[in-house]
Structures are given as structure tokens and as C-alpha cells.
């Protein structure tokens, strides 16, 4: 299905180049984050989504203005793809007032409300119920908006997932549940946490419309997301979008990954890198690629400079923003 779909709605090469550029930006941004973290410059607890860039870009590019998202602990990609400037994201990771959460959030709590990012969540499954509620608000007010939740395979085991899916379907709210199935929850592989092979079945328990797609192909993700969003926006109820993807790094920055063979990661890097896949599909001439790399590198380096030059909060600022 996915391939047929892709062929019949092929995106213009320029659009795909734009997607590639965005994916590359996310990749290089996160690599920089890893580097800066290892250099001891970044505080806190960081998780990169290297390998999952096509999901963030494919889904977020399919959104309309006014649509909202909720993200997870692995939030940099979603945040950038939803339109937050790399400067603001990097500034947040450096704990600066210019950051997208003004230094209050950090990597696991990225917000950009103006751009429809209602927040990343460090509690697995914690953001799902709110997405149902935002979608309900859109429905009650007859606004043509959709609320989108990102979450992982591990999150499908938690009660909040169940209650949220059930409620969304019962009330027919315009929500899309994007499962980024990267086959691991921290160190725990599918077979130690999931009694079924195909997580698409989880949607059946609620009678929710489900789609299962290859998340390493951004075009496939984009088309599927468009369809899912249309379904939701047209009042046909929520959609469960099961995206198969891969985490090409550790769970968190610094994870020695003792729980999986080095070979697995090497093989995945070789076969499942969404950036490389798109680059070779596009048959991008070396020159263009290098230009893209340079452009992206400049943005990423710029974001580090921006962040470092940012304003530290005053200690007492901690006592602001507790109440409205």
C-alpha cells in the first residue's frame, strides 16, 4: 500500500529536497547536542532521535497551521520539525532565557505554544490524555484542527495509552496517535515488553482506524500522515499511525548499550538510515549535498553560538511562572 501511495502521489523533487534538508538539520543538530553534552556543556538528561528523523519531518510537514502536537522525552526532532528555530531549541538545552521553554523545561520539556507544540513529556504516555482533550476542544468549537501525539512502543504498555485511545475513539475526536515503534524501550526489546508482534492490533481494541507504515521513508510518512490527518479533520475519528522506525543510537546520550550487540547497530546504520535513504533516492549530486551540509552546519553552529551568548536566568526567576 505504502509504495503504491507513494508512487501515485509522488512529491516534487524540491519538496523532497526540503524534507532532506530538514532531516539533515535534525541529524546534525542532535549530533552537535551529543558532542556538546560529552564536552560537559549541556546539563540534564538527553535523548536523541537519530534514525527517526523521517517520522518527525514526515508528520510535521503534513500538519496544517493550527494543528498541535505533544512530544516525548525524545523531542528535539519533533520540536524542530514543528517549526521551533534551532537557536531557540539549543538555547533551551543550554538553560537560557531565549530557549523555547525559557530555561524552565530542558530537553524533555520542550514547548513552543505559538507554533503548536504543547509540550514534550518526560513521563512515558504522560502527554496522551491531553491530546485527547485538546482534540475535544477543537471538536466542541467546530475548529478544523487536529491534535497529534507522538509516543514509542514502550508507551503502548502504559494505562494512559489505553485510556486515551479508548476515550478518543469513543468521542470521535480529531486526534492522530503516532506510534514511533523503534523496537526498544530503553534497554528492553520488544519480546521482553510486548506480547504481540504487530502493535497495529492495539488499535483494534478500540475500533480505531489504523495504518502501519515504513518510518524510514519520509515520503511514505508524509502521505500516510496527510491521510490520517484528513480522516481526523473530516470528523471520521482518530487514527492510529503505526510507524516502524529505528533508534540508531543509545537510549540516552552516554548509553553504553550493553543490551544489544554492536553488530545490530552497525547493520541498522547501514540499512535504515532515513537521511541516507532519501539522499540516495534523490540521487543528489555531491555538490548539492555538500552545500546542504554546509548550510545545515552553519545553522547548527549558529545555534550553539546563539545559545552560548544567551541570557542566564537569575536564580530567583525559579519562582516565576508557577501560577498564572
Amino acid at each position: 500500500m505504502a509504495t503504491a501511495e507513494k508512487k501515485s502521489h509522488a512529491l516534487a523533487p524540491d519538496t523532497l529536497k526540503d524534507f532532506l534538508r530538514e532531516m539533515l538539520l535534525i541529524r546534525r543538530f542532535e549530533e552537535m547536542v551529543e558532542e556538546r553534552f560529552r564536552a560537559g556543556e549541556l546539563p540534564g538528561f538527553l535523548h536523541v532521535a537519530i534514525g527517526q528523523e523521517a517520522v518527525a519531518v514526515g508528520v510535521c510537514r503534513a500538519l496544517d497551521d493550527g494543528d498541535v502536537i505533544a512530544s516525548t522525552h525524545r523531542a528535539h526532532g519533533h520540536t524542530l520539525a514543528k517549526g521551533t528555530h534551532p537557536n531557540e531549541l539549543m538555547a533551551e538545552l543550554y538553560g537560557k532565557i531565549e530557549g523555547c521553554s525559557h530555561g524552565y523545561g530542558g530537553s524533555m520539556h520542550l514547548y513552543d505554544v505559538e507554533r503548536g507544540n504543547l509540550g514534550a513529556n518526560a513521563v512515558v504516555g504522560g502527554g496522551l490524555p491531553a491530546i485527547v482533550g485538546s482534540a475535544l476542544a477543537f471538536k466542541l468549537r467546530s475548529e478544523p484542527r487536529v491534535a497529534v501525539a507522538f509516543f514509542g512502543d514502550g508507551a503502548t504498555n502504559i494505562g494512559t495509552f489505553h485510556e486515551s485511545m479508548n476515550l478518543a475513539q469513543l468521542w470521535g475526536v480529531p486526534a492522530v496517535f503516532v506510534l514511533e515503534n523503534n523496537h526498544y524501550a530503553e534497554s528492553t526489546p520488544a519480546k521482553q515488553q510486548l506480547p504481540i508482534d504487530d502493535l497495529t492490533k492495539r488499535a483494534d481494541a478500540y475500533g480505531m482506524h489504523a495504518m502501519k507504515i515504513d518510518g524510514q521513508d519520509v515520503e511514505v510518512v508524509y502521505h500516510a500522515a496527510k491521510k490520517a490527518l484528513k480522516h481526523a479533520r473530516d470528523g471520521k475519528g482518530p487514527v492510529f499511525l503505526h510507524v516502524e522506525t529505528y533508534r540508531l543510537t543509545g537510549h540516552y546520550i552516554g548509553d553504553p548499550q550493553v543490551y544489544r550487540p554492536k553488530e545490530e547497530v552497525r547493520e541498522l546504520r547501514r540499512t535504515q538510515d532515513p537521511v541516507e535513504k532519501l539522499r540516495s533516492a534523490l540521487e543528489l549530486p555531491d555538490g548539492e549535498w555538500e552545500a546542504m551540509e554546509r548550510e545545515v552546519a552553519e545553522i547548527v553552529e549558529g545555534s550553539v553560538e546563539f545559545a552560548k551568548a544567551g541570557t542566564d536566568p537569575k536564580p530567583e526567576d525559579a519562582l516565576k511562572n508557577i501560577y498564572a
Partner: protein
Amino acid sequence: MPETTYREAVRDAMSEAMRRDESVFIMGEDIAEMGGSMGVTQGMLDEFGPDRVRNTPISEMAIVGAGIGAAMAGMRPIVEIMYQDFTTLAMEQIVNQAAKHRYMSGGQLKVPLTIRTQGGAGWSPGAQHAQQLEAWFVHVPGLKVAFPSTPEDVRNLLYASIYDDNPVIFFEHRTLYGLKGDVPEEIEPVEFGKARIHREGEDVTVVATGRLVHEALAAAEEAEGEGISVEVLDPRTLLPLDEDAIVASVEKTNRCVVAHEAVVRMGFGAEVAAIVQERAFDYLDAPVGRVGAKFSPLPFAPIMEEYVVPHARDVLAAIKKTVGKN
């Protein structure tokens, strides 16, 4: 509406807000046709329809969370948790989400959500249907906590909660639903953090919440007969707390008892005692006395339940002990 019950007063505050604007709606288990397990929402389905008076599945996490999401999207939802004991299921959403979104976003979001719940012993439902857990929420920055004890206060405070831009946990006491009292014609939203002095007195201040306000008033009446003049103060909101009013009262009376139905250990009274001993240390002529449930889950048998939860006589005993007449 001159005389009304606590139950009607709750309903009236919600209905008034729902009439006033479309952003207010209510969700909860069995609140529609059945009118709620306590009859609080009776008739509201007829007036407002099923979109705004929404029966929900048994999904405490999701309904609180849906309230959060709707609130972040510009609504002013009211979520009913049927029994306070079941807030245990929604703690993650209340504590990690509702209370923190504004903060974690650096002020970008607000969560104008009201979570109503009720509880209270005295009818022998056993250990899982009558706990008083309000103290937990007072420990959570980002939340507001209300616990009104009269029809007038419950109406005004609930209305204020609905229009507060922060998440409010709103505690109603089961045994007060039938309580009648005068309420003003118009709703007058009360400011959070303003105590009410129910009775003035000279010898001892009783800080009481919920049902214990009424037990304290009964105890004060009796104490009066024995020559002890008791001031009864109801903070009405536990977070924020009107510390100044409590301290001012104790500076006048030089003695203090704090009374609630919850278990004494780590109950709200601990916080009041800690504040009073700190801020009114030089005024205190006796230790702050604490009245509350004995350290036990709630037993079923009425004889035992009666023993565990506090009554007017326990407040009276604490008053006497504090004024040195025990």
C-alpha cells in the same frame, strides 16, 4: 436563592458559569442521566446537553488529562472524580502534568482546570471510599487547593475556581451536601487565600476544614458553656493559605488547635502547626493541638469507623487540653 444546600450551591456555581460562557463544560463518570453519584449535577444534562455534561468511561487518568488538554486549548473544563480515593489513579496527571505545564513551558501555557471531588467518612463504606487526601496536594507547587465548608463558600469558591487560570483541586465533603445555608443572590467569587472567621473568640483559635468546621463550631458552643471563648477559623483554601489570618488570630488567643477529618500524621494540621509555632512562637501559651483521624485505614464496622474519625467531642477535648483544663 436565599437558603440553599451545599449540593445545590455546587450545581449553581457550575450552571452559572456554563450559562455565562461556552468554554465551561463538565466531564465525569455518571454525571449525565444519573446526575452524579451524589446528585450534584442533577438536571444539568437537560439544560446543557451531552456535549457539555459528558459521561465518561471509568478512566480517571484520561479524564483528568483530557481536562488538561482542553484547558490548554482554551476551555475551562470541570472534571469530577467520583470519590477522592480515586484521585490516586490520576496523581500523575494532576501532579506531573496539570501542576507543571505552565512552569515547564516558562509561562507559555495556562491550565484553567477545575477538578472536583468529594469524600468523607461517617457512612461506613470501608477503606477505599472515604479517605481525606487533601494534604498531598498542598505539597505540590502549581496546584491550588480549595476545601469549602458552607453553601455560600462552596458556591463562590467553585465559581472562582472555574475562572481561575490555574489547576484547582476542589474538595467537597460528602456529609455536607445536605447542609443548608443562606447564600447571596449573586455569586461573589472569593479570592483564594482568604480565611473566614466563623466565630470570634478570645481563648483559643481552632483552625478547621471541611466537616470539622461544623464540629469545631459545635465544640465551641459547648466550650462557651464552660467559660472558654473559642475562635473558629476556616482557611477555605489550603493552597494558597491565609497564614496571616491564622497567625493574627493566634496572636490574639495565644492558643491553637487544628482540626480536620484526615489522618493526623502528615495531615494538613502538621503544616498549620509548623507555621503557627514558627510565626507565632512568642505568643503561644501551649502547643498547637492537632485533631484528626486516628492512624488507621477506615474500618467498615460503624463502631470502629466512629472511633477513628474525629468529632466535636475530640475538638472539645483538644480545646480543653490546650487551655489547660483537661
